[in-house]
């Protein structure tokens, strides 16, 4: 197991380097630079000075090596769109609202989705099954900005129960958390339902029933545990995807989070920030999949990793 983890860590490092190279090259292959927006007439002399200041007049490989050398020392540079702070300071500031709202969205949405999926599986073809299917389908197909708009319309404009948008008062968290939770609820309801139905049709469940175990014990102790693998697979990647902020949810609810930076860093050719965001996401996904794989092995000893044992 240990050697498996080590081998996986080496491959994470390799992935990290390959991704950094691809991102870096793509970033610089996009036409234009940070100081030639169409509506921002900067004189040639000033542009040259700025490019030199930021080291952008150097050959690409020098820029890349310099940046990556910085990354090794946890120095991700200074974001062009927010001078006066480091990229790390920006991330730690902007990530807080995204982590709170997106994180809570997943933490609340996932258990709700599991419960809904379980109820659906245990009451197949009942109204609750149809409800779960409807929730799952709608949750996955309606774009989140539409969900957000509907939530605002119903709860803020018509019922006037909650503020429409804003930050940081906790009553303003509720609607965005619901918007974020829609996807995990839908995903988990679908996965749980199909995984449980699949498990319940296995012969060992019939054996358990024949042994006279209570239905409750069968479901919670045996079926759920055996159905957990797909649920574990999706959890961490979904958590990362949601807790790094959605540009749509954050824009609709006026949350000063990380989401918008994913787009603005590309739009404004904010190379240091763009690199940092991409590297951060890559790293987190690599680790998330690694952890998921380890957890697999723990909850299901039949899975033997890498054929090593």
């Amino acid at each position, binding site marked *: 197991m240990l050697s498996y983890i080590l081998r996986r860590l080496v491959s994470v490092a390799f992935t990290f380097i390959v991704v950094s190279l691809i991102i870096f090259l793509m970033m610089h292959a996009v036409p234009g630079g940070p100081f030639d927006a169409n509506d921002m007439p900067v004189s040639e*002399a000033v542009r040259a000075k700025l490019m030199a200041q930021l080291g952008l007049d150097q050959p690409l490989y020098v820029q890349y090596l310099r940046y990556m050398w910085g990354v090794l020392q946890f120095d991700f540079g200074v974001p062009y769109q927010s001078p006066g702070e480091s990229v790390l300071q920006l991330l730690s500031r902007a990530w807080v*609202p995204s982590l709170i709202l997106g994180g809570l969205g997943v933490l609340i949405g996932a258990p709700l989705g599991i419960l809904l999926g379980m109820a659906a599986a245990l009451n197949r073809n009942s109204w609750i099954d149809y409800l779960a299917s409807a929730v799952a389908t709608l949750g996955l197909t309606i774009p989140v900005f539409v969900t957000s708009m509907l939530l605002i319309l119903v709860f803020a404009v018509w019922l006037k129960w909650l503020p429409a948008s804003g930050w940081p008062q906790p009553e303003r968290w509720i609607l965005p958390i619901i918007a974020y939770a829609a996807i995990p609820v839908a995903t988990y309801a679908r996965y749980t339902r199909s995984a449980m139905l699949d498990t319940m049709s296995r012969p060992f469940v019939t054996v358990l029933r024949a042994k006279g175990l209570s239905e409750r014990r069968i479901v919670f102790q045996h079926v759920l545990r055996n159905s957990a693998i797909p649920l574990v697979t999706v959890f961490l990647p979904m958590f990362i995807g949601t807790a790094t902020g959605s540009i749509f949810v954050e824009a*609709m609810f006026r949350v*000063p989070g990380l989401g918008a930076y994913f787009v603005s860093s590309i739009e404004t050719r904010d190379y240091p920030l763009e690199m940092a965001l991409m590297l951060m996401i890559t790293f987190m996904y690599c680790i998330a999949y690694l952890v998921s794989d380890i957890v697999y092995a723990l909850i299901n000893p039949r899975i033997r990793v890498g054929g090593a044992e």
Partner: protein
Amino acid sequence: MHISRKFAATLAIATALTLPAMAQATIVAPGQSTTGTYMDYMKTVYDRATFAELLQVPIATFDKEFELTPMAAESWSQSEDGLTWTFNLRKDLVWSDGEPLTAEDYVFALQRAATSGYDFAWYWDFAGGIKGWKEVTEGTADVSALGLVAVDDHTIEVTTTAPKPYLPSVTSLWYPVPKHKVDELGDDWALNVDTIVSSGPFDLESWEKSNNSVALTKSDTYVGPWQAQIDRLEVDPSLGAPEVGLPAFLAGDTDYSFLNTGQVPVAMAADPDGIRKNAVFATSYLSYDLESEPFNDVNVRRAFYYAIDRDELTSTVLKDIAIPAGSILPPGYPGYNPDVVAQATFDPEKAKQFLADAGYPNGEGFPAIEIWIREEGGYNGAIVPAMAQYLQAEFKDVLGITVDIRQLPGADWMDGLRGAKNNIFIAPYEYDYLDPSNFYGIFYNGGRHNYFVPEYDDLVAQADSESDWDTRYDLYAQAEQVMIDQGLIVPLVHPITTAIISSDLGGEASEPNSLGFTPLDRLGHYFFTHLTK
């Protein structure tokens, strides 16, 4: 005893009466850009933090009728030869940290813009025409060569290369920079709330960089004209998108919101009295490559001029998000001339006749043309593509001409225009400074369009440096007549922005001007200091 009890009772009543009045009046407003780097207009205009300009006091600014009003300056005068302007500053102005605000702070602001500011130098080059500006920005002359002198603490002298009768209006974008702060901290003074100082009607309370929202408070050190009547102003650029702004407005989270086309009926139903419209000082027009076929023929250009039903265009396709344009100048803009506007009629017969005169009766034999439009955001994004399709149908209908439309990214479109890579364009333009020379300048001697029309250029050159305003406007009107007669452009529409404001807002800034327009935060200094709640 009796008297003191009476006094106490009076005091209690007085306190009770004044308490509600002492409640803080806070206005929540939408902003424009969700990113901003420096809280310093003179360092960067395009990447500035939200309402950096509200923190500082300009030399002069405009009220809602677009009358130029002295702010930091008490008065100004022009020398006999018209080349030198003297601005006399108020003597009692201070920075929020108590340091006196002097002529040096204004001169320094422009010296820095010319040498190390990054995106504002162009304005002062083409609008200001300050002596030595080009040489200094290009690095071929020392900053001392600029025609800018702080004669004493309260007097600034500005020398221009040619007489610029409208220079005072250009100073509406001349804000001071706290030299004492820059000496201490460099440009970084404008990065942190703790180090930012203000000279205008508002102080900075907080700045959330993730969405560039700010909270401003009424300044207690500003003693100049136009002091704030509210205590606090929160500006959130996330509210700038109508899709976010209107729901927030309806839920009571903001005091006004801009509207998109689809929202106008909803807002009208919610509160017709709250609707405010503003004519943006902008114009969309057709322009041509005057050198090549088929638009090198004035008759073809005249045919296009008469072939457009602007009233139908704006009332149907554009749903009143724009008004018909008969001139390059928008209504309310200095020099706006109704006589010129009246000539821009829809006359299919005339249009057909001109086209026939050009040798294309009913469009027969007319070459295939493609209108190039620019990818647009904001109000132009709602107008230009729809308008292009309307024109496509109209030219087919009236002139019998087949037109294609091609949309290009900004830089490619500009390259096509400058390099004459196509022969017909829809070009939108929004003013940069409030003077006719701004709009006429885009066709002057090459300008934006590579137009070289000697008759037009002569008139514009004369008008630009004419100091008698009536003569000047008359010369510009003559120049525009040349434009019409030679069909150099076809003015199409002027964009209109629509907003809904809360009935809690009061003060003269919340009411329309004499033309029926309410410029709202487009006149930030006027608007936020003449607003009550």
